[in-house]
């Protein structure tokens, strides 16, 4: 199927020299929920603003449904948008805010009221149509903003960190609501966030941005289990990392020697040859305390136990690192205390050797 949006070699430099977005190629499938994820300054928001029409690419082409968007002003693109600070019109009631995009798109007067009603029911706020935005809570304002972006039926909706200002509980609730709206309406959504758990929860695919480039574009599970490089591995989820050197490889399994001389069995996907410097990435939940049957078995000293209710985090000294984290069920951590000598082990498949950047 033809993609709804394409970026071809799109670059942006605000000052004419530093590339905030660097030769970006990206194709969006119709109906997809794509998240642009990255730290601040990584180029994700600039990418969104170029798609919305608030920034012009320095070079390259963006198309929407096959049409080149260069020189098409924002108000003619037919793209809905939700902003971080809601950006509701403060002098208009909720109803007037929702009617505005309908009026702008020439919807006949008689159809406006019923469509506003439907949009309000969609975000479960039908009783608030006469309120002014300032009389609503943050969560209610964000729902109205979502309804305003969707009410005229755009094919593409952009969301710029829309839940950033909400508290954790409300944020998690809104994540699911937006996800459900996406599933019901079949609209294509491009979502910008720096919150990796939000990205994992909501997205069909995630594009991880760093230094103006997409480091990896993949489904959430692929991104978590098979990070393409050390940046993605450390940005998505918690991660133990070791610097080392590739000693030998055979297909997708390999041996790595760590800085302190310890040998580790790991898996590898990239085409690195023996002798190359690598970064080992290991998820804390893949670590077992005790001998187990795993090939990697290292002595460890317990430095700290962090109790988190359903599980505990152990901070350990392993192979010269004092930041080694293991995640274990809370019940199994009860007998240990600081200073205990333990053994940590993990399977080779849980430990990925990535090219050192």
């Amino acid at each position, binding site marked *: 199927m033809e993609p709804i949006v394409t970026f071809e070699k799109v670059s942006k430099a605000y000052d004419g020299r530093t590339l905030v977005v660097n030769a970006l190629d990206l194709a969006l499938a119709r109906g997809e929920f794509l998240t642009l994820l990255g730290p601040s300054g990584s180029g994700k928001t600039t990418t969104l603003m170029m798609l919305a029409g608030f920034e012009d690419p320095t070079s390259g082409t963006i198309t929407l449904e096959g049409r080149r968007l260069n020189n098409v002003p924002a*108000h003619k693109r037919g793209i809905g948008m939700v902003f971080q600070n809601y950006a509701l019109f403060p002098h208009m009631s909720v109803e007037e805010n929702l009617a505005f995009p309908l009026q702008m798109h020439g919807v006949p007067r008689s159809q406006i009221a019923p469509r506003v009603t439907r949009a309000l029911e969609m975000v479960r706020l039908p009783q608030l149509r006469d309120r*002014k935005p300032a009389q609503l809570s943050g969560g209610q304002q964000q729902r109205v903003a979502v309804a305003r972006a969707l009410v005229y039926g755009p094919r593409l909706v952009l969301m710029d960190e829309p839940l950033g200002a909400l508290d954790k509980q409300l944020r998690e609730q809104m994540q699911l609501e937006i996800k459900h709206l996406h599933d019901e309406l079949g609209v294509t959504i491009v979502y910008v966030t720096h919150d990796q758990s939000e990205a994992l929860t909501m997205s069909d695919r995630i594009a991880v941005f760093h230094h103006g480039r997409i480091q990896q574009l993949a489904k959430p599970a692929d991104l978590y289990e098979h990070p393409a490089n050390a940046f993605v591995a450390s940005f998505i989820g918690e991660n133990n990392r070791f610097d080392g050197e590739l000693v030998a490889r055979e297909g997708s399994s390999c041996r790595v020697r760590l800085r302190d001389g310890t040998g580790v069995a790991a898996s590898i996907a990239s085409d690195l040859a023996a002798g190359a410097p690598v970064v080992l990435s290991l998820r804390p939940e893949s670590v077992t305390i005790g001998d187990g049957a795993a090939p990697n078995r290292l002595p460890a000293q317990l430095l700290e136990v962090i109790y988190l209710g359903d599980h505990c985090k152990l901070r350990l000294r392993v192979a010269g690192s004092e930041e080694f984290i293991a995640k274990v069920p809370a019940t199994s951590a009860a007998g240990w205390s600081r200073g205990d000598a333990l053994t940590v082990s993990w399977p080779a498949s849980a430990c990925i050797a990535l090219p050192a950047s």
Partner: protein
Amino acid sequence: MIVTRAFTVLVLLFLIAPIAVVFPLSFSSGELLTLPTPGWSWRWYEDFFTSSKWLLATRNSFVVGIATAALATFLGTMCALGIFLGRFRGKAILIALLSTPMVVPVVVTAIAVYFAFSFVGLNNTLAGLVLAHTVLSVPYVLITVLATLSTFDRNLLKAAATCGAPPHIAFMRVVLPLIAPGVATGALFAFATSFDELVVAIFVSSPGQFTLPRQMYAGLREFLSPTIAAAAVLLILCSVLLLAGNEMIRSRAKLRTAEADPAEPN
């Protein structure tokens, strides 16, 4: 406590007394501007409202004042919007340049305008007076509108664009309603600037374009009739009305923001 109060009263007296003197003078029954008045009468108000000179001056003042307010408000608002939204260097310098008519002595502006108008034949026309007053008034509009815009959320313009609104409709439906108090205050200031203005009027107007201040000045030089006092009282009343209007705009704007405060966020 008593000392500070007494001091406050003295300061107020100092400010108001000279103005207050014209009130009894305007109701004098005598021919001369003297106190105490020989008796009381409305004759000088009658004279004001039956004299073709004073009526013309009143009409000119309002025509020039309203035209100036309209023109200066339009130009000043557009200018403020351009400075607020534009992405360019030297905004502070541009604002300073545009504000020069406020700091340059009016007589300098008046002489400059007089010579400039003599090239294009705008001296001794109402249109010329309107243009000259607009030059003096634009900075007031610019500054009040810029002050209001500083609280305007630019994202609202982006939101309007993603709703499909072209820039001119976004301005009318989103920007203007939100900055209306600043625009209205600027318009009042522009009107007041023109309504009070004498120096430029001396240079660029002839008797056909005399405004109230100019006519009073002419009256002072020709013969000191108490009609001037009556005109002065009427001018003061107009100023008080303008001030009251401005206060009303401010308190209404305040009320609107107070109304917008979430009483019970749930």
